[in-house]
């Protein structure tokens, strides 16, 4: 008669699942996932994935999503340059409320000689469509200024 011997499986120490799972979860969630997303993003949406950059004369001049820090009187200015009382939450808000853009029209008219009516028309044509989902009317400052440079090369000869 032979004694039946239970196969001795090595009993895993209780910390093994903790250590292995902690390392594994870091590799999968902390590295593999963002790398896969980066691969897809760079392949499918390179423009957005690299910061939605604006180009002028073939070179990048910034991002449409980040305040371009305009200070010259001939350009529309963002909210972050003027004074702390109007500062945005991010400090790099690329947009201004429609009313703030319109309030700058006389200054740009004085600096460039472009008719106020023309400037007002450009501003209002740049109001983002998202007013149709309940937002306040706003315009993107960089888009506005690039439109000025593109449409009025004579007034903006140093930039176009």
């Amino acid at each position, binding site marked *: 008669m032979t004694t039946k011997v239970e196969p001795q499986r090595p009993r895993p120490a209780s910390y093994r699942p903790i250590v*292995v799972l902690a390392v594994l979860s*870091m590799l999968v969630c902390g590295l593999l996932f963002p790398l896969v997303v980066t691969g897809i993003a760079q392949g499918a949406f390179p423009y957005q994935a690299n910061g939605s950059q604006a180009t002028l004369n073939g070179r990048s001049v910034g991002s449409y999503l980040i305040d371009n820090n305009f200070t010259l009187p001939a350009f529309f200015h963002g909210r972050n340059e003027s004074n702390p009382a109007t500062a945005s939450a991010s400090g790099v808000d690329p947009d201004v409320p429609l009313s703030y853009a319109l309030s700058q029209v006389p200054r740009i008219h004085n600096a460039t000689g472009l008719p106020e009516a023309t400037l007002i028309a450009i501003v209002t044509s740049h109001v983002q469509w998202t007013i149709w989902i309940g937002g306040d009317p706003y315009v993107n400052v960089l888009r506005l200024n690039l439109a000025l440079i593109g449409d009025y090369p004579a007034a903006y000869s140093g930039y176009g």
Partner: protein
Amino acid sequence: MIDALQAFVVVAVLGAALGSGWALAPYVARVLAGSPTFLDRLLGPLEKRTYRLIGTDPSSGMGWKQYFFAALLLNVAQMAIAFLVLVGQGALPLNPQGFPGMNWELAFNTVVSFASNTNLQHYAGESTLSYFSQMGAIQFLQFTSAATGVCVMAAMVRGFKRGSANMGNFYVDFVRVVSRILLPLCLVAAVVMVALGVPQTLGGYITVKTVEGATQRLLVGPVASLVSIMQIGTNGGGYFGANSAYPFQNPTPITDILQIYLMLLLPTTLVFAFGELVGKKRETLPILIASYGLLAIDLMIAFIPSMAAVGPGIEARFGAFFSTFWTVVTTAVTTGSVNSSLAGNNPLAILSAFMGMVIQATPGGEGVGIMYMIMYIVITVFVVGLMTGRTPEYLGAKINARDVKLVMVAFLIHPVIILVPTVLAYATKAVNAIPGFSSLPTSVGFTQILYEFTSSAANNGSDFLGAAANTPFFNVATAVVIFVGRFAPIMVLLALSGSMIGRRRSESQTLRTDSGSFSLVLTGSIVLLAVLTFLPFLMLGPILTYFQGLVNFLG
């Protein structure tokens, strides 16, 4: 007040969250129940190898203590890894800006905050963290803390469910939640986010010459992948210091709406999954009515004031409407991401934010929202049972005196760890160490201190103070509050649920918990509990600020 179009947008976003939550719930319930799903072909073999590597038998279940300590220890181990990544980032790859390692106190604060699903941040990511840290510490803990919350809910439901033999296997739950729920959802969300303008790159910061010839740096990075889990996982800690107010994290009102929707998605799904998991779909009804009913009330309170023009602290693309909507939702699901500075919000929006954080179940954080709702249900069943002279029962199990003691302990943890440190902050004059604090109106200052601890205790993470709270008192106090606020209620409520296993169940419950009238009683008792506990403090804070504002405006 908001106009009809804005009201429609609010209803549409909530409707979309409810609709997709309802549609996703059966799948999520199958994942949590260990049933076959369509991803088995792909993930099944990987999963088996994972269990072998971990050394766990997927068919073996755990008692509540084993389950709780497995969860706690795994969280601690993950914190340790993230801690090493943060302090060692100077020597690790993917650090194109050459940031040095984080100092150990801040790294400790950060990993506690992220591992507990809180995401209170005393640093600005874009000027502190390498890409490796943003991925291997921050995103990593955002996944694991969200998964832990869902696991806790799954275990708790098993305890309450008729006929369960144990609480389930934590490791199996964790692997399945990460691989079959969080990763697939986040992958889709991250790619959509990139398409809508959120950057995702490992190339370093981009230097450009602006139109006027100045030099500017564009702070890009692996943003979209982080934002996907930070919203879906109700984490809230942003890639940037300004969180979702920063345009690279939230470029347009469309991404804003998408992120509000993503915050609501899984908490709402879990409300519907609850009924599936206990095997009585109608038991979802009271949770659904109470959570969304209270969220609707919070939104209405926040939208009472006029939605003024874009003021300081509010982004032009969001305005007061999208900022207020966000502030209420991010606290209702205890995410804690922000798309404005809280100081730019109306006091009534802040009051609604407080309501979300003191209740923690509207519908609350990932998994823990359901956990707190079960706590409220047990209290309500007990009170109603006393009033009507019926046996208090939930899901057929008789609620006994020990159960009520446990839920009362779980309930009281929250007010104690909020109100005691708030009082201490004043009593020890620790508030004076905050720059500029003494120049604030008393009610505004009080609101900010109360908010700091409410947000920490609720594992929310939004705050007024930010880096201003980087003082010894606030660093230590918030870290303790965060840790206790996360793990103490989980332990007590898992103990409650664990004690349900093997308890005799009655076939017909005398007090029905799946009726419309019970839903209303539940909603009322949640309001009563929260209001009775916190109203005096809220009166001295946001409510006083609101009426002072009205008086100033009129006078």
